[in-house]
């Protein structure tokens, strides 16, 4: 608003001046009201003229034209009164001076003809006609005026003397010229008024526009202020993450509450400083520029940085750096968002430590138990009785079970902490599968389950850890045997599948005629400690780690595991692994020669 006023005031005076001029001209020339005013002026003149009749010797010569003139004058005045109405077109107003002219003509005819002193009264309506816009009033007014001037002659030709003709001729000419001059002056005045009005309208439009712009700009800056406040409050509400913004040169311009709290630096100490001059981050001085070049070229970068606080303690901070871009998309600065992961790292370290401790503390007593049991069994001096041997066997079986459980728990912890890595080597799967069949054979035979292997003739290679792959197949085969009632069958097949030249797969499939898994439990089957309801219902022992471990092994080998099952009919698991490139012919990779296509165990 203030801006709008400032724009308005210097031009205000000029606008006011042009206002008064134009209103005067408008009043005189085209305002409908002035029709009545002009007519009142004419009527007053007429009334004054009537006073002349009171002068002795100046009385009317003919009464009838004088009366008619009076009647016309009254009619014109009454007409002017009604023509004021805004609905009446402006053009109609010219009728009034025309009637006036006729009235004056009649007055002259009645009061001394051509020599009448009332001839001058024609000047008023002629000027009035001239003031009317356009040439039409003059075109019509000309003949009417001539007619009015000739009326006395028409009324009484005898009145016209020889010398009077010049007046009859010059009168209309002078009146016509007067009318023309007035008309021209009025036209010029009007065009100036129009120009002034146009300018004024333009000025008003510009003023309104300026006001609108000022309003819009005020609204925009209010909005900007509001959103800036909002952003600042949001950034400052982040108290557990450090948010540091810099410009293109690395000068800090944003330093939120979280940054102050985490780094122990006050905002006023940080703002304006170069990010490279921050104490405590070795990484900033060493590799900031190379790092920022990477950020500039595209994707956000996430790194773990170590920060040494003023009291000397070290923080592990995970820093994500993104580029700030301007409207054109050019890099305008950088945003560093830091999360203190010191506690997480410490927790992970402690967890690792705990896992290692458990590994040691649980496996050591089990080592003693199993070792001394073997000494008992091997003691040749005092051999065990059959019953003792059975007891020792039971202890040994359970100790081994405990050992497996401990190993599975440790392996699960290792997978969970992301520390499970496959030490890759070329592995031939026939030997892996055959070893699993062999180790599951005695249990299958004891349970009365037929265990059968069907393998393709060609060797199948994958890249991986033979021990872990063996563990995965062992889990699947022993599960199948465990979940299949006596008289059932477990079939293990080894084959390959190729979708394309680069996508050759090795498939190990283990299918059984066991209890099956309900469809709604299949999704949870690979979760840790999940046990299918059919396992619990059939009192099949286990803790629910085998399949989660098997899948972790498959995933670590860039493979997957699939399952298809029908309750009461059986289950089929397929271990799907990417095939490794087949070694060159004559290569020294140990492929078991001539492995039987079908092997029976048990």
């Amino acid at each position, binding site marked *: 608003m203030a801006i709008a006023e400032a724009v308005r005031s210097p031009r205000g005076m000029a606008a006011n001046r042009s206002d008064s001029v134009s209103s005067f001209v408008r009043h005189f020339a085209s305002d409908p009201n002035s029709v009545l005013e002009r007519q009142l002026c004419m009527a007053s003149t007429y009334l004054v003229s009537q006073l002349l009749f009171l002068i002795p010797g100046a009385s009317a010569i003919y009464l009838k034209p004088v009366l008619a003139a009076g009647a016309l004058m009254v009619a014109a005045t009454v007409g002017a009164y009604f023509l004021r109405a805004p609905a009446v077109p402006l053009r109609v107003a010219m009728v009034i001076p025309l009637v006036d002219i006729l009235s004056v003509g009649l007055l002259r005819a009645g009061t001394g003809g051509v020599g009448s002193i009332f001839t001058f009264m024609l000047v008023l309506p002629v000027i009035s006609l001239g003031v009317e816009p356009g040439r039409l009033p003059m075109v019509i007014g000309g003949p009417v005026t001539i007619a009015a001037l000739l009326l006395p002659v028409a009324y009484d030709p005898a009145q016209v003397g020889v010398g009077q003709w010049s007046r009859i001729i010059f009168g209309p000419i002078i009146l016509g010229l007067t009318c023309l001059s007035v008309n021209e002056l009025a036209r010029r005045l009007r065009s100036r008024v129009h120009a002034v009005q146009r300018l004024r309208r333009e000025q008003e439009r510009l003023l309104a526009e300026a006001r609108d712009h000022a309003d819009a700009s005020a609204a925009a800056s209010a909005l900007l202020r509001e959103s800036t406040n909002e952003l600042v409050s949001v950034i400052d509400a982040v108290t557990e993450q450090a948010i540091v913004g810099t410009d293109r040169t690395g000068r800090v311009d944003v330093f939120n509450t979280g940054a102050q709290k985490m780094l122990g630096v006050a905002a006023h100490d940080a703002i304006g400083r170069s990010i490279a001059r921050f104490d405590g981050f070795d990484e900033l001085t060493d590799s900031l520029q190379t790092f920022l070049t990477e950020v500039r070229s595209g994707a956000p970068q996430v790194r773990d940085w170590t920060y040494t606080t003023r009291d000397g303690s070290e923080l592990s901070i995970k820093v994500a750096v993104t580029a700030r871009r301007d409207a054109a998309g050019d890099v305008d600065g950088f945003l560093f968002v830091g999360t203190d992961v010191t506690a997480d790292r410490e927790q992970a370290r402690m967890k690792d430590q705990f896992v290692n401790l458990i590994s040691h503390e649980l*496996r050591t007593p089990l080592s003693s138990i199993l070792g*001394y049991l073997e000494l008992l069994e091997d003691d040749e001096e005092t051999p065990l009785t059959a019953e003792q041997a059975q007891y020792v066997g039971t202890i040994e079986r359970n100790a081994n079970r405990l050992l497996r459980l401990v190993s599975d728990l440790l392996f699960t912890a290792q997978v969970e902490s992301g520390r499970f890595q496959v030490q890759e080597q070329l592995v031939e799967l026939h030997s892996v599968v055959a070893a699993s069949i062999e180790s599951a054979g005695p249990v299958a035979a004891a349970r009365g389950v037929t265990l059968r292997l069907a393998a393709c003739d060609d060797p199948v290679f994958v890249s991986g850890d033979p021990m872990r792959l063996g563990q995965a197949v062992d889990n699947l085969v022993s599960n199948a045997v465990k979940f299949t009632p006596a008289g059932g069958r477990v079939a293990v097949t080894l084959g390959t599948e190729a979708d394309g030249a680069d996508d050759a797969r090795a498939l190990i499939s283990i299918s059984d005629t066991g209890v099956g898994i309900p469809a709604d439990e299949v999704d949870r089957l690979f979760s840790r400690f999940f046990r299918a309801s059919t396992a619990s219902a059939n009192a099949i022992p286990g803790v629910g780690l085998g399949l989660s471990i098997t899948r972790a092994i498959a995933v670590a080998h860039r493979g997957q595991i699939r399952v298809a099952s029908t309750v009461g009919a059986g289950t089929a698991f397929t271990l799907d692994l990417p095939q490794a490139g087949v070694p060159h012919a004559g290569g020294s990779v140990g492929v078991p020669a001539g492995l039987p296509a079908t092997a029976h165990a048990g």
Partner: protein
Amino acid sequence: MTEGPVVVIADDDADIRHLVGVAVRRAGASVGASVSDGAAAWQAIRDIGPDLAILDVAMPRMSGLQVCRSVRADPAIAGTRVLLLSAAVHTTAIEAGLAAGADLYSHKPFSPRSLAMQIRELLTAQVTS
């Protein structure tokens, strides 16, 4: 009494030490020292100069890996055979053990029968080398 090869055993668990001792004797060797921490093992190896040291990896004062590295670094006893015994099963742990200069890396739990066989093999290899 001290006939045949001499072995130093180090493990912080007395039962395991005894079990390893049985395996050593079954392999036809004698136990020169049986100690419960790494520093004592290092001391015993330097004092006795055994043919073989069977070391637990996780021990107080000095780990089996540290003892193994020290043995390899000392020219006077660098030829001593070293068998590391550990409860850790990670491939990385085995690699670390072999990198430290161990001749063999064996897991706990172990079968005394198999361990005796391994000890015999290691000692025979030493004799031939």
